[in-house]
Structures are given as structure tokens and as C-alpha cells.
């Protein structure tokens, strides 16, 4: 079973990507109580922006920097001019709005880039392989996992170790009080949503060279990210870490061990968690 370590590493890489997508989703959900259906579409936008920018400049590192910034701006605009307007109508409308946005973004992508897969090739250091323990493994997959670790640790540090984190968590529990204390809560929410969008953009840039860039990529990752949130527990960052790892490895070894069932395994895991602990592994009871 010499494949086992390779598949394990594959699983880690996919887990890293899953975490990058679901971290933003679960952050926005946990902080703002908005389930952003457009999150995966924003991830896709990130991948497409990156594709174009990479073709124009050839600088992958530049994409990693600029594309999340683009998505940050888009996220801020969406929150400020669309989401905030429907907030008074309730959750149903917020959901519907993000759903409509996802729909439009997907169609726009088809219109601009076409309804076919695009291949992204990164040259340079990241495109090479490395040899260790007798295996030859692509550096890029290790890089993905590294990115996820860095993002996860920074998010935890910001949330639990800084003053900003304290304000954020307080704004969730009692936004009126925090507002009265002189903090601009609406601005905080705009920031959180925009940050979530930027994370999705980063994930998109990273996904480009790993997976294919095509209009169905949003839906594909959305379902997996939702499963991560359900399994890990709604709004829980730690839950997202554990569930991403579980599902990443499950997907990877599923292909190795039960190639026909690999798709169903993820859903089976979700169903099992729903039966045993409906609020998710790390979720608080609703």
C-alpha cells in the first residue's frame, strides 16, 4: 500500500482548500447569521480573475494578492448596497438575495469567459515537485495546505487574541450595546462580509491550478463546503477545521478504496452526523 501516504497528502491538500472556502462561509454565518449562497460563486470569480491576471502577467504571487482584494471590494459593495437593504425583510430575503447573486455571477462568468473549462498552469517554484521519504510530490499541494494553516491560525489569532476580535464577538452577542459604545457596527458587518468574500477569492485563486476552472466549479465546492459546515457545526471555526480534514481525507481515500461510492461517502458522513448529533460535531445546540 505505497499509495496510502500519497492519498493522505492529496486528502490534506483538498482539506486545505475546503477549509479556505468554508472558513469564510462559517465566519459570515457565525457573525452575521447570513448563509451566503453566493460564497462559492465569489470563489469562482476569484479563480477566473486569477486566470485572466495570470495570463496577462504570469505572476501567480500577484494573483494571490490582488484577486482577494478584488473580492473584498465586491463583498463590501454587496453588503453595503444590497444585503443591508433586505436585512429588514428577514433571513428569507437575505438567503434569496445571495442565491440570486450566485445565479447572476455564474451567468456572467459564462458570458465573459465562456461555458467551458480553462486550464491554469503555474510555472516556477510552485509548479515543481519535491522528493521526500522516497515519494515525488507536487509542491503546490503542500503549498495549499500551508495556506490553509496560515489562514486558520491568523483567523483564530484575530478572533481570540486581539481587540478587534473582542469587538467582533461582542457585536454578535449584542450589536446595539456595541453600537452604543461608539463602534460602527454596520461597518464591522461590512468588513466581516468583505473579509469572507476575500477568503473565498483567495480559495478561488488557489483552486485554479489544482482543479479545473469552469462555471460548474462553484456548485461543486458549495455542496462540499455546506457539508463541512453541517458536519463541523454551524458557525464554528474549529468545527470547520476538523470537518474539512475529515471530508478531504474521506474524498481522497474514497477514490482509492471505493471508487464507485466516493461521492456518496460524503453524504453518508453528513447523514450519520445528522442522526447522531444534529447540531454538528462542534455546534452549539440550537
Amino acid at each position, binding site marked *: 500500500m505505497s499509495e496510502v501516504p500519497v492519498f493522505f497528502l492529496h486528502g490534506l491538500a483538498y482539506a486545505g482548500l475546503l477549509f479556505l472556502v468554508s472558513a469564510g462561509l462559517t465566519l459570515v454565518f457565525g457573525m452575521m447569521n447570513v448563509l451566503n449562497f453566493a460564497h462559492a460563486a465569489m470563489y469562482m470569480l476569484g479563480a477566473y480573475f486569477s486566470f485572466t491576471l495570470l495570463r496577462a502577467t504570469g505572476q501567480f504571487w500577484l494573483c494571490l494578492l490582488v484577486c482577494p482584494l478584488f473580492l473584498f471590494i465586491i463583498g463590501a459593495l454587496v453588503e453595503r448596497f444590497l444585503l443591508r437593504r433586505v436585512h429588514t425583510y428577514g433571513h428569507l430575503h437575505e438567503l434569496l438575495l445571495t442565491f440570486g447573486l450566485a445565479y447572476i455571477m455564474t451567468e456572467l462568468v459564462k458570458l465573459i469567459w465562456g461555458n467551458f473549462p480553462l486550464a491554469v498552469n503555474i510555472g516556477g517554484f510552485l509548479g515543481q515537485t519535491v522528493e521526500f521519504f522516497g515519494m515525488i510530490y507536487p509542491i503546490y499541494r503542500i503549498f495549499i495546505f500551508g495556506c490553509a494553516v496560515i489562514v486558520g491560525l491568523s483567523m483564530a489569532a484575530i478572533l481570540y487574541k486581539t481587540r478587534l476580535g473582542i469587538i467582533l464577538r461582542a457585536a454578535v452577542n449584542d450589536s446595539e450595546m456595541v453600537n452604543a459604545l461608539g463602534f460602527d457596527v454596520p461597518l464591522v458587518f461590512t468588513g466581516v462580509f468583505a473579509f469572507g468574500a476575500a477568503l473565498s477569492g483567495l480559495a478561488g485563486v488557489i483552486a485554479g491550478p489544482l482543479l479545473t476552472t469552469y462555471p460548474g466549479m462553484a456548485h461543486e465546492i458549495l455542496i462540499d463546503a455546506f457539508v463541512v459546515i453541517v458536519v463541523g457545526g454551524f458557525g464554528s471555526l474549529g468545527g470547520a477545521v476538523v470537518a474539512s480534514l475529515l471530508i478531504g481525507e474521506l474524498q481522497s481515500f474514497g477514490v482509492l478504496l471505493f471508487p*464507485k461510492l466516493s461521492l456518496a461517502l460524503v453524504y453518508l458522513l453528513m447523514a450519520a452526523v445528522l442522526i447522531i448529533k444534529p447540531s454538528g460535531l462542534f455546534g452549539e445546540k440550537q
Partner: protein
Amino acid sequence: MTSQKKASYLFIALIFALGVLMPFMIKRYHLNMLTEIIVFALYAVSYNLLLGYAGLLSFGHAMFFGMGAFTVAVSLIHIPGLSMWNAVLLALAMTTVVGFITGGFLLRHKGAYFALLTLAFNSLFYAVATKWHKITGGDDGLSITRPDLNLGFTTIKMADLTNFYYVTLVVIGVAIVFSWYFTKTAMGQTVLLMRENEERMKFLGYNTNISRLILFTFTGALAGLAGAFYTLHFQFVSQSAISVDMTTTVLLMTFVGGTGTFWGPILGAFVYIILQNYLSDITDRWPLFMGLIFIVMVLVIPGGLSQIILSIRRLIPGKRNTDRPVAAEEASP
């Protein structure tokens, strides 16, 4: 109250009479479109019972529509000599069972959680339909021929569009009228009251969990019936019938028409199918326009087309409605 009731029945009779006359008035191409509209009207009505009446936002309604569609196709292919009725009944039975079981899982969650889970379940069904090539035909889909209808004393040729149109008009029409009637029945009212104040309902002796499950199953079966006729209409079904796009379709129809009234989604189905037919002639990117219309609706007229019509009616003297929200108006006798 009674005059209003009479008016409703008169209106229904009028629509049916108009439906009966349609084949003599419009071209074949349009009759085809009208059949499709009727099928989707039931799908939208079933979705609105869930969204507008019970307040449950589901992104998985297509699993019932698709399940109904596939059941008819698969059973007609694999059971020789199966009558159309029995195929439709099988579809109804299948969606009822699936609705009951999935509902048991899904309804333990509310709001966004519920929405998310329905999407995940729908994706599971879609994945199965795509992978289980032997039964569902996978990407190729399944083709069928409509069996002729044996009424005992005579046989109606179903290959003829006009004949099939009449069958659709009667069966789907009855299902829609029953759904409307349902909103006035004890169960229909229970659903509305639960949306208004679920907690109080518990203290009045209602088992709200069971009520929700019953409603979910019922709307699933209605969507399954619509799906069954979808297959019979196109004489073809592929995995797109069970895709999340099919849920998006019904969501758009329902929302464009308006969730506040019973008939709004029917209007929505009408407008959607016509727009889809004409826009897709002009541009390949018609979903983009539908998406834009949807966003504008959410932002500007959350009540949909029926809200516009009701506000216009309010401007006409003598036709004043009360200022109560439309959903509650539906609830009142």
C-alpha cells in the same frame, strides 16, 4: 363572504372553460407551451405551499419533481404494458415515501439550516441520478412514448398533443384546485397558524412537527405529480429534471409571481415559461436576465407580481381590500 366564495368558483370555472377552448384558438406551438405552463404551475403551487404558507425555504424541491419524472420514465420502460395512470400513481407513491423519509431528517432544522440541508439532499439525488447510468440513463437521459389512455369504453390516442393537453388540463387542474381548497381546510389553516405562532399552537394541542412533516410530504407528492407530467409531456427525462437548477426554476417562478397569494406562483410560471421561450430565442444568456429580474424583485417588490396587481386593485374604488397582509387575507374565510 359567500359572494366572494361564489366568485372564486366562478373564476375557476371560467379558467377551465377557457382552457377547454384553447386548442381551437391557438397554434400547436403555443399549445405545447401552454401544456408546459400548466405542468409548471402545479410545481410552483406546491413550492408556494412550502415557502409562502409554511415559511419553509427549500432548495431541494427538485428532488421530488425529478423523482416523479424519473419514476414515470423508468416504470414505463421497465414494466411492459403499464398504463399511464399506474405510472403516475407510482410516481405519487414514490414521492410520498421519499418526502416522508427525507422530511424526517430535514425538518429537524429550521431556517438557513433547513435551506442548506435541502440543497445537500438535492445534490445527493442529483449525484445518484447522474451516476446510476443503468437505471436513469445518466447524461443520455431516458426517452419514452406516452401510452394511450384506456378509459374502458374507448381509447384515447396520447400521441396527439391536443388529447394530451386535455388530460393535463384536467389532472393538473384538479390538483391545483385541490391545493387551493387545501389552504382553506383544517390542515391548511393549521400550517398558516403555525407560521404565525408555532409555540402557541403546541399549547393548543397541535403536534407541530407532525404537521410540518405532513405538509412537506404533501407538497413533495404534488411536485412529483408535476414531474410525472413533465416526463409525459416531453416524452423524455434527463438528470436536469432533478438538478438544483430545477429548484432555482421553481423558486424564480414562485418569487416572480409572489408568495403572498395562492395564484401568484401560477402567474409566475406563466410569465417565466413565456419569457424563457422568447428570451432564449433572442439570447443564449437569458438566465442572466432572469437572475437580474429576480434580484430586482427581491430588492424592490418582495411581494412579486401579485403584489403589484393587488396594489392596482386597491386603487380602484369599490374594490378595496383590507390593509392586512396578503397571506393573512388568504387565511381568513
